[in-house]
């Protein structure tokens, strides 16, 4: 299992933001994307996850291999923690939610309505969904937002367990997760050049 991305170009709202991005992540590896706000980290991750088409280049794996976690956790407030996870376990046909609850210490909260959780607990629930998907490639967008130090430790442990099981992860984050083996890719050099305004009328068509 290897995720190879070649010469990928992505656009946000029709405007190219990144071009010529190439990297390879093999099983058991983590690649962390860095770059200033607005450079296109989220757009790149959404493209890799198959939510939007690239404007150029290719992604080496089918979208069926990817599990995607966005800024929003997709949690239903009126369902309990267990019901939320069981729903995704059914959709991904994986069944058992026990390991996911354990990995993020959600056992004690399992029967609480998800709407009553704190922001950090919601995030833990959102990340527990990644364990439930059973997919080999985790595509994570700012996974540690609103997590405390201990929960970041839980998350790092979950990522390690995922890597040990032959998975791989691609994530955008600015904080240090304590994953020494992680490689970092700075997106700065891949910023798309602004289109030359040689065709003024064309820009409005």
């Amino acid at each position: 299992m290897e995720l190879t991305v070649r010469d990928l170009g992505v656009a946000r709202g029709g405007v190219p933001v990144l071009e010529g991005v190439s990297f390879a992540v093999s099983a058991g590896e983590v690649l962390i994307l860095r770059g200033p706000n607005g450079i296109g980290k989220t757009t790149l991750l959404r493209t890799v996850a198959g939510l939007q088409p690239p404007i150029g280049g290719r992604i080496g794996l089918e979208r069926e291999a990817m599990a995607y976690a966005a800024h929003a956790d997709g949690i239903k407030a009126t369902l309990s923690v267990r019901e939320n996870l069981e729903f995704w376990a059914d959709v991904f046909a994986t069944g058992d939610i026990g390991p996911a609850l354990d990995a993020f210490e959600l056992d004690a909260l399992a029967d609480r309505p998800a709407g009553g959780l704190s922001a950090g607990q919601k995030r833990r629930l959102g990340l527990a969904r990644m364990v439930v998907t059973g997919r080999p490639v985790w595509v994570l967008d700012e996974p540690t937002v609103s997590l405390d130090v201990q929960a970041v430790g839980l998350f790092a442990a979950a990522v390690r367990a995922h890597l040990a099981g032959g998975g791989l992860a691609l994530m955008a984050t600015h904080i240090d997760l304590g994953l020494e083996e992680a490689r970092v890719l700075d997106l700065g050099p891949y910023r798309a050049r602004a289109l030359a305004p040689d065709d003024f009328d064309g820009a409005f068509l």
Partner: protein
Amino acid sequence: MIALLGRDMRLAVRAGGGFGLGLAFFLIVVTLVPFGVGPQSALLARIAPGILWLGALLACLLSLDRIFALDWEDGSLDLLATSPLPLEAAVSIKALAHWLTSAVPLIVAAPLFALLLSLPQAGYVPLVASLALGTPALGVIGTFGAALTVGLKRGGLLLSLLVLPLYVPTLIFGAEMARRGTEGLDTTTPMLMLAGISFGVIAVLPFASAAVLRVNLR
């Protein structure tokens, strides 16, 4: 797919899910019309099939924007789109869940509401049959409208404007079937047209809905 249906039904029935909203609206329309028209039961009985159909249609319209808007806001639509479930299937299931939670209560309650409008006895069976045949079309067309407007803030107005013209054929043939039944005429032609519209949109529109949803998720 069963999981998504179960989740949507559960969400609709739990607090804040909007279950009963359509039914309450239907009840309001049906109880207020006799006050507006005045105490003439003969007139009421004549317009009852049309009023009941109009009330059911507007009640369906009321909850349409919730089909995708809530899933869009909390991010689960993105996650569903990346899940093994084909988007066409997800769209169909959500339309089915919407029909079960908003249209089926209307169909069940329709005979009771027909009583309030003094619908003649012969009209009950054709009314319920026409609603049962026609409301799936309302749900599926509405799901298409909801998919078109997902992600727009306050998209409800645009949704109504887009969907209302598409609802016209269903309303015409549905109300016509109920009216003919009430007057003891043959209902075959409007029934066939209504069934044709329903099955046609059920077969075609989920693909269109999934396609526009993909564009809207970009």
